[in-house]
């Protein structure tokens, strides 16, 4: 697995970027942080559109060192921008060919057209496409460059909810099947929860955290919530078996989770999202509850959120789970780091079904 070694400083009018990090490249790495944290600027530095002071390496390849600077067109890195940036003077087929011809990938066009269902759009002009259609073309065009790394800068932010759900499955399949690492800039916790396998958080131009999504996500939720954003945790589990009464048993190091319906073939890996407010806590193992999923856990931290709530981080056999309860309950249950308790999961969602919050 390659990594991207960044040691770059860049001064902008309102922001100083200082990044010194080695980012392992696999799956989808979400670059997450509030507006103005430098997410897009970091992506532009990696693409080569901006030049800071310092060094950058992609695997063994030196992109920047001293006077050496590899220009964007030599990096073989594809960028999908927030706006599709299709070429208005070419039709859809022309836009795809533009990328494919320069990468010697003309043979791959037909398969890409099929994969992104672009056949009916080929002779259309970009100006006549809907936002979702245009972004699908932009994704296909980016992949036709045979990139070694795909950069996505909030690719669904400009789209409405329905269009987002049209694009996100393509990004998921790209993440799971194409074996091309993706860096994905987003300020949406819901998107990050659904897509990320690794998360890099930025604050004020610096790296605040980097690690597997399962480890970083529950902590992210402890930051002040963005309107409409649901804090939650991510569990990667394997499908075990389907019970006779229609429940699917999913196994992860912290225990088992039951969920209705067959979510995948035996042994398949699935990503589960558990919203923090769907987690109840109990000191004793509760009896006589309708909830199926009750997991033993240990409190790792208690962070007050807002006036009356608290964000509880739990360790569940090595997997982090977040809960959102009131301060009154924290006091009543005597919750503090190190206390053993039980997490009652009221609801579990598959990441691929989880809708980004409107």
């Amino acid at each position: 697995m390659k990594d991207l070694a960044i040691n770059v400083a860049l001064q902008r009018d309102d922001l100083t970027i200082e990044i010194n990090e080695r980012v392992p490249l696999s799956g989808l790495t979400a670059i997450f942080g509030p507006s103005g944290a430098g997410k897009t600027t970091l992506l532009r530095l990696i693409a080569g559109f901006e030049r800071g002071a310092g060094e950058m390496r992609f695997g063994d390849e030196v992109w920047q060192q001293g006077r050496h600077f590899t220009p964007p067109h030599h990096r073989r890195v594809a960028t999908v921008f927030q706006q599709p940036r299709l070429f208005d003077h070419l039709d859809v087929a022309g836009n795809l060919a533009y990328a494919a011809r320069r990468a010697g990938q003309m043979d791959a066009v037909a398969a890409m057209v099929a994969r992104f269902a672009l056949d009916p759009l080929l002779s259309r002009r970009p100006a006549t496409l809907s936002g979702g259609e245009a972004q699908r073309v932009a994704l296909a065009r980016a992949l036709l460059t045979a990139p070694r790394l795909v950069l996505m800068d909030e690719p669904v932010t400009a789209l409405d909810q329905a269009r987002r759900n049209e694009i996100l499955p393509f990004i998921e399949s790209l993440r799971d099947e194409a074996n091309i690492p993706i860096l994905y800039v987003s300020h949406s916790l819901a998107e990050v929860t659904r897509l990320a396998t690794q998360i890099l958080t930025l604050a004020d131009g610096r790296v605040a955290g980097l690690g597997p999504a399962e480890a970083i996500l529950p902590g992210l939720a402890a930051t002040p919530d963005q309107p409409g954003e649901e804090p939650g945790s991510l569990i990667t589990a394997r499908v075990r078996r389907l019970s006779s009464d229609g429940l699917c048993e999913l196994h992860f190091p912290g225990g088992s989770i039951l969920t209705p319906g067959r979510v995948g073939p035996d042994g398949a890996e699935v990503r589960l999202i558990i919203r923090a407010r769907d987690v109840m806590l109990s000191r004793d193992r509760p009896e006589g509850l309708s909830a199926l999923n009750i997991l033993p856990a240990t409190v790792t931290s208690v962070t007050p959120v807002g006036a009356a709530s608290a964000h509880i981080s739990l360790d569940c056999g090595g997997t982090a789970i977040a809960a959102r309860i009131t301060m009154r309950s924290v006091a009543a249950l005597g919750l503090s780091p190190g206390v053993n308790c039980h997490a009652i999961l009221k609801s579990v969602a598959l990441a691929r079904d989880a809708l980004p919050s409107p």
Partner: protein
Amino acid sequence: MTDLAPLWLTLRLAAIVTVLLLILGTPLAWWLARTRSRLAHVIEAITALPLVLPPTVLGFYLLIAFNPTAPLGQFWLNVTGTTLTFSFTGLVLASLLYSLPFTVQPLQTAFTQLGPAPLEAAASLGARPLDAFLTVAAPLSLRGYLTAAVLTFAHTLGEFGVVLMVGGNIPGETRVISIAIYEKVETLDYATAHLLSGLLLGLSFLILLALYALNGRRRA
């Protein structure tokens, strides 16, 4: 039978100047649209000078520079064996200068409006800078090129002062239509002056009509 040679000479001059300026003006306009250099203001001001300068002033300086005893005039005489003053070549050179802003300003505006986004997209798709310019920036600036071409052509068509200063009035060489009209009026040949003036008026109107129709269609 009216002698239409001045008309053909004028059209030839305007066509040659337009083609040359579109080629030469592109890098200058591109640089002006992209650079953050402070020198840009100086270059912009120099480029715009022909807009405000009386043509006779520009013509006077060019006449001095084209003189075979001046460095430029001498160089030209040594290399080609001909003089720049009172020659068609001299007219082309002079016209390149006084029509320069009519090429550079529309192109600069088009390149500025284009912004960096399409070029970044082209670069991310593996296009080298010149490739990206020719295949993305230039086609997307087509309207700017058409405006620049029409304005340059029309302006070169009607120039009088500079031509009078550096070109004089040599039939078939420097007697362009505006000079011919002036001469006909001086010799009281009003009929020919009417005809040539009418031709120039009609031609200029048609060119501007085409320009506005073009811009209007895009606007709608």
